[in-house]
């Protein structure tokens, strides 16, 4: 191998390694930035025993940002987060939900009536823990027909 070839080979080896390492560095940085554990409320959380929510009531749970309804057919939970820009909607008995920020209106089932909201309010799945507490799972979206019976 003559001098220039050798030089080129060595140089490109070095450059390749450095470029690969740089790519690795970018990848590692991206991985580093994505957290592995979260210090935030879990997606499944108990909200209390069913007796705390008497039949025919709608309870707003501000710390979980959801409404819990108990009607004759069973329990159901509707998110209070407006699908437009994330404000908390208000519940108006008999009318549905109204968002104070940009005037979106939803019916009792969280379906959009009018306003800028692009999607209906989310419904969450419910279950009963071994300690007989209602458990909400925000990662379990359900249809508006959903009712949970204890």
């Amino acid at each position, binding site marked *: 191998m003559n001098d220039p070839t050798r*030089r080129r080979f060595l140089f490109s080896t070095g450059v390749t*390694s450095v470029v690969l390492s740089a790519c690795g560095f970018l990848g590692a940085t991206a991985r580093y930035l994505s957290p*592995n554990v979260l210090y935030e409320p879990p997606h499944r959380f108990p909200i209390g025993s069913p007796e705390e929510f008497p039949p025919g009531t709608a309870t707003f749970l501000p710390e979980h940002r959801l409404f819990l309804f108990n009607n004759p057919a069973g329990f159901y939970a509707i998110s209070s987060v407006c699908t437009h820009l994330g404000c908390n909607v208000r519940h108006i008995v008999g009318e549905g939900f109204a968002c104070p920020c940009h005037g979106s209106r939803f019916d009792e089932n969280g379906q959009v009536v009018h306003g800028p909201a692009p999607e209906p309010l989310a419904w969450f799945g419910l279950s009963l823990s071994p300690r007989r507490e209602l458990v909400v799972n925000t990662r379990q979206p359900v249809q508006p027909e959903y009712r949970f019976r204890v």
Partner: protein
Amino acid sequence: MRTPQRASVRFHLAFAVLGVTFLAIFSWVFLKEYLAEWRTTQAQFDQLQRRVKDPHALSLAAPLGEIQQIWLPDLNRVDRCPTCHLGIDDPAFVSAPEPYTTHPGAWLRTHAPDRFGCTSCHGGQGEATDFRNAAHQPIPYWSDPMRSPQLIEANCGACHRERRPRQAVWLEKGREVIANAGCIACHDIPGFSLEELRAPRLESVGYKVRPEWLRTWLADPKAYLAQARMPNFRLEPPEIDSLSAFLLAQRETAPLDSAGIDWSKADRDRGRTVFGEARCVTCHRLEGRGGTMGPELTTVGSKVGRAWLFSFIKDPTHDQPGTLMLRYRFTDDQIRDLVAYLTEDLIDPGAPQASSEVRYVEPALIERGREAFVRHGCYGCHRFSGMVDLGKIGPSLLGIGDRAIEAADFRNAAVVPSRPNWLFLKLRAPDTLADQSRMPTFNFSEPDAAAAVVALLSIRRADLPVSRVTDQPRPVRYEPQGTFGALVARYRCLSCHQTRGWGGELSTVPLDRIGSQLQHAYLVSYLQLPSAVRVSLEERMPWFRMTREEARTLADYLAGVFVDDSLERPVPLDADAARRGARLYQTLGCRGCHSLGGTGGYVGPDLSDSGRRLKPGWIEAWLSDPGRWKPGTLQPNYGLKPEEARSLTAYLMTLSTDRSGSTP
């Protein structure tokens, strides 16, 4: 001459080598991350769960490949133990090896991991994600390693503050040891109060004890009495001299006058009879038998003076206002005989003889004695007028469970410098840890000291949120007033009986609803002359020799106030039902524990006289659910139907030792 302006091959070579090295070392960073211990542990678990579970259950299983974390903001804990202990809550893994196995016992049912985490009970470093750093074994720089099985109850005690936590035997025993040893006299200890402390007042001790006894006692209380509660202060002879001089000079309240007593007429045998009839052994030990509420009397004659003892039995509160001792209604002659028996028969032949000559005691010696008294914190236990607000002599034990222990704290280098070891040695032999320890030697047995260590370790520095703590309300002091109150005070009912959670624990019968349990006439006669309902019990109610009026007063009050309305209901008592009840009595095997007319077991009370003793409403309620009225009772719940309970009640109400068959 172009070459100098080009980099030479040497540089290209260096560049290539350095570049490749860098790539290699950078790959090592990745390798290290993706070969982390918890990842391989999870991979092995994945293999395991594929064998153990069916595909459906598998799809519901926890996702692998990520760190599992329990975050408990109120406890300031982050536990990542489930990252490796993956089967802990799943019974399918009961036979799996560590770390995948199921948690033994039913503990997780009451202590759900998502609410309590793991380190709350077990200790260890919850943040860690590998075996070593999780502090399964002690590691440097983590002061709270995982608790060994012997110590884990200490962590129960951090939340369970009640004196007798369920299912934590060592903790319960340890708390009892701490309470009984009177640690609270010198240390502030959360959960313990000075009211539990019992020690005689010493303002008039100069009248009470014999000088030669006092010296022996001060030198080593256990030498006089193995059960002595007072610890050994390791006093030097000069201190014993000055302390006894100081104590013997304490003569505030003179004993009641016994000058008119003709001691030559004293009859020790009659005294012994009085001693037996009054059931003194319920509280006082004699030759290894009897209760422990009062001091042992085996050699009391070598300890106290005759005049003082006469006065004390006549009126115990005369110089000991808070004593648990009751005031019998003895005649002076009875007391004389009793005192003669106690002081002449119950002596220690080996005790040093009384030195009769009266010696002059320098005031300076007495003053030095007072200083020693204060220096050793004697006032902590022996409440002493003029010595209030001196403070506790020892440090507060708040946070003792977190106290850092350095190797330098141990003089014996062979001992592992751990917190439990330090506490254990401190309790067993305080003088072996530090030169100048003022803590006295308690001579705790090794199991007692170990239990106390568990209880002490449960006292942590950072307090838990109220919602996490379980406790029992401290009983409120109950002091009845009026005639009834005076009688309760005189006969010290609450030294043994409890009501509203207040009172002694010697008696198994709480007074809360006694008026609804027992018939009035029976109460009156029982108070006047108590007869044993449970023959197997050594500790029986004493014979107070109270008058009929006193007994009536007490019974009236008990029947009127200490009642439970739910028990005051009529039970139909017809003969048919009684016959059915008699059959039930046989088929249920009641005779195994209760005796009737002299036959049967003696675990439970004798039922021969229940028709005159008990109220039917109570019998029925008791039989229906004994545990409700008395947790931990040996009477099992037979699950009787209401009709059966009524039949048995009817039958029991027919039982009477009085042949005439009269009912009140």
